[in-house]
């Protein structure tokens, strides 16, 4: 029987690592229509599976690797896949969207997703083809870096691998696919705990699409939009994400000295322009990418992936280092060891402040760079003090103190944006489901100075905008798309002509459109239209046959966000857990301007009301309206526990 929806391969693989067996996981077209794919699909699967008290390193914790319906359908920037699991760093769900080619290859094997459960007794590589799943001994790969491991796997295949950090269960270890990373939340540590060193996928199947001609036309238009938009067609290809350092400095949002300031005197030595002029060898791109933002640089005579904005900021300004060559090298070392650079750098900065305040001396201090590479190795292998830093900022602050300047949200270290000069971004950090992540936060800085220039210090309208962007980016990710494609929804002229009177009027009015945006987010059916600036909704319709509009995108996003949130509550997230460290909410960045701190409580009140949440927990009514699959007795027990 022909499946009602195209775009999908129609099967989900379930792999039991304990017994080394595999089977098909039931997943119907109703499930596809409800979740779309990617991280929303993964959250739905995990919500049905998780139990009270389940933890990251339990054998029953599932790793869910999902693709989106657009993956493999010829759409631009659609090679993404997602890994979701219980995070060892935060104890709640994490989801990591990765640009490597594993998702494409998985679909070629005939699967939309693969779920791993159990624990292998010895290191294993799981090799997936469209006929079979083979468990290969990985003892010889154990101990190898991410590059060495990938070099020893079949060249013509999609790969997921971990490095030494994953093997030693560093709580922020990541998973690599080619040069791209499923970076945040420690998915690599869960791989390591399961003795899962690598996964390969090789197949030749291709998804059907519903209307090939219309999809081809919308893809052409989509590529044109991405290549002519000021952000995706000019800024990112020319400077990569590293091009943000200078504007972040200008807007006072460049995290400096463990987020105690928003500007760094040495920013010109670590900025994207410096990287482009002196170190860039060439641009690179994920498969199917129309943007090409990745930077390739030279380290030890090898051409390797260059640093993104996050590591330039967090291993530059945030530790008072202005040596870009060292950052390039550390970026390479962290990739080889298989560690999330954001969390690693944030933890190092916290250790430096502990030393400065005389709390604990890890040998790390602001401005001193000689021993940082050595510390990264110690972290990856959990040697000496590295064993302490391997547990991340939150656990260190619980052990040694300094919670007010332990820069994390829900246990996840913040990205390089200092939110006291972009308060909506601060709200996003606090409310993001996976913790202190700039993307899951809704990437509010893109309207608060780094794209549009909406007043970054006013709390007005920020809750509504954060919700809309969080939902939209959730849906874009679920479709299998790169999140950068969502920037194209911002009209180019508002960005390119910041000094036009029309632009100034629109931007001044922006914070006051909150109630309208709220209506749109809550009653998504209002938006039953497609808009040319968001070609995803057209592409989903033409690829799958699912009726898709802007309204569907916002509904999938809201469904995903609420599903993840209630799953987190079942996993132990407390009421009112959406918090930031006191440094960011109680201390003004500029002592002469009291607006330069995050008015979190004020914004959260509006946010919770607009989301249909109470104290950060979705109401039963909200979950039922969205159709989130949870039983009333489970919901009641979880909420009771959240207030205990």
């Amino acid at each position, binding site marked *: 029987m022909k499946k009602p929806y195209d775009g999908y391969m129609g099967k989900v693989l379930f792999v039991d690592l304990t017994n080394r067996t595999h089977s098909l996981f039931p997943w119907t077209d109703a499930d596809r229509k409800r979740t779309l794919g990617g991280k929303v699909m993964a959250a739905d699967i995990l919500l049905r599976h998780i139990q009270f008290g389940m933890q990251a390193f339990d054998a029953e914790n599932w790793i869910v690797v999902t693709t989106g319906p657009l993956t493999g359908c010829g759409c631009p920037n659609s090679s993404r896949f997602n890994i979701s699991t219980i995070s060892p760093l935060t104890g709640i769900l994490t989801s990591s969207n990765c640009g490597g080619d594993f998702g494409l290859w998985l679909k070629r094997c005939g699967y939309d997703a693969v779920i791993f459960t159990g624990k292998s007794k010895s290191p294993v590589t799981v090799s997936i083809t469209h006929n079979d799943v083979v468990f290969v001994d990985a003892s010889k790969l154990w101990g190898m870096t991410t590059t060495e491991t990938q070099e020893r796997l079949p060249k013509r295949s999609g790969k997921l691998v971990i490095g030494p950090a994953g093997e030693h269960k560093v709580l922020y270890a990541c998973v690599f696919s080619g040069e791209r990373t499923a970076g945040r939340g420690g998915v690599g540590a869960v791989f390591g705990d399961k003795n899962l060193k690598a996964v390969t996928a090789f197949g030749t199947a291709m998804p059907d699409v519903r209307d090939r001609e219309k999809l081809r036309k919308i893809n052409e238009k989509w590529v044109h939009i991405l290549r002519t938009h000021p952000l995706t067609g000019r800024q990112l290809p020319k400077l990569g994400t590293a091009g943000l350092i200078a504007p972040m400095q200008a807007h006072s949002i460049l995290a400096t000295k463990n987020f105690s300031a928003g500007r760094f005197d040495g920013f010109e030595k670590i900025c994207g322009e410096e990287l482009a002029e002196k170190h860039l060898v060439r641009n690179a791109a994920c498969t199917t990418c129309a943007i090409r933002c990745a930077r390739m640089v030279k380290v030890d005579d090898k051409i390797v992936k260059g640093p993104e904005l996050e590591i330039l900021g967090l291993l530059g300004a945030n530790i008072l280092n202005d040596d870009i060559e060292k950052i390039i090298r550390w970026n390479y070392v962290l990739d080889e060891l298989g560690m999330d650079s954001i969390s690693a750098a944030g933890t190092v900065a916290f250790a430096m402040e502990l030393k400065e305040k005389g709390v604990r001396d890890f040998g790390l201090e602001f401005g001193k760079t000689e021993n940082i590479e050595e510390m990264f190795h110690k972290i990856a292998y959990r040697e000496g003090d590295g064993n302490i830093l391997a547990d991340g900022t939150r656990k260190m602050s619980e052990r040694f103190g300094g919670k007010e300047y332990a820069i994390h949200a829900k246990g996840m270290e913040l990205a390089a944006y200092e939110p006291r000069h972009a308060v909506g971004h601060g709200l996003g950090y606090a409310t993001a489901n996976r913790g202190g992540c700039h993307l899951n936060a809704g990437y509010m800085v893109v309207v608060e100075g*780094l794209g549009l220039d909406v007043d970054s210090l006013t709390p007005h309208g920020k809750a509504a905008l954060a919700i809309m962007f969080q939902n939209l980016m959730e849906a874009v990710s679920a479709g299998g798309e790169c999140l950068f494609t969502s920037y194209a929804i911002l009209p180019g002229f508002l960005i390119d002509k910041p000094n036009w009177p029309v632009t100034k009027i629109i931007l001044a009015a922006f914070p006051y459109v909150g109630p309208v945006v709220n209506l749109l987010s809550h009653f998504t059916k209002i938006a039953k239209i497609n808009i040319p600036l968001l070609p995803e909704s057209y592409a989903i319709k033409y690829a799958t046959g699912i009726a898709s509009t802007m309204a569907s995108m916002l509904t999938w996003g809201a469904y995903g966000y609420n599903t993840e949130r209630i799953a987190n509550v079942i996993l132990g997230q407390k009421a009112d857990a959406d918090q930031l460290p006191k440094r960011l909410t109680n201390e003004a960045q500029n002592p002469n301007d009291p607006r330069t701190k995050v008015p979190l409580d004020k914004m959260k009140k509006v946010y919770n009301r607009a989301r249909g949440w109470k104290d950060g927990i979705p109401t039963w009514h909200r979950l039922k309206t969205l159709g989130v699959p949870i039983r009333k007795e489970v919901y009641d027990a979880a909420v009771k526990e959240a207030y205990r």
Partner: protein
Amino acid sequence: MAKVTVKLFGVFRVDTRTPQVEIEVEKLKDVFFALNEKLGHIQMDSGLRFKDAVVYVNGEACKKKAKPLQDGDEIWLLSPASGG
């Protein structure tokens, strides 16, 4: 006339391959004319114009083009799109 330093960032710097220039001007709006004279011969790939820049004077955002400048002022011109 004030002697000022203009630092270019973003696409302006990449396209013109010029990190900074020293110029003598009276007001902020004169900076754009001066830059066009000095660097106008370089065709910017992006088609951007200096007058569309986001401007900072001595680290402070400045939208008043009639602002008088003083000796030693440092002006940052950022290309008007930075997301990533």
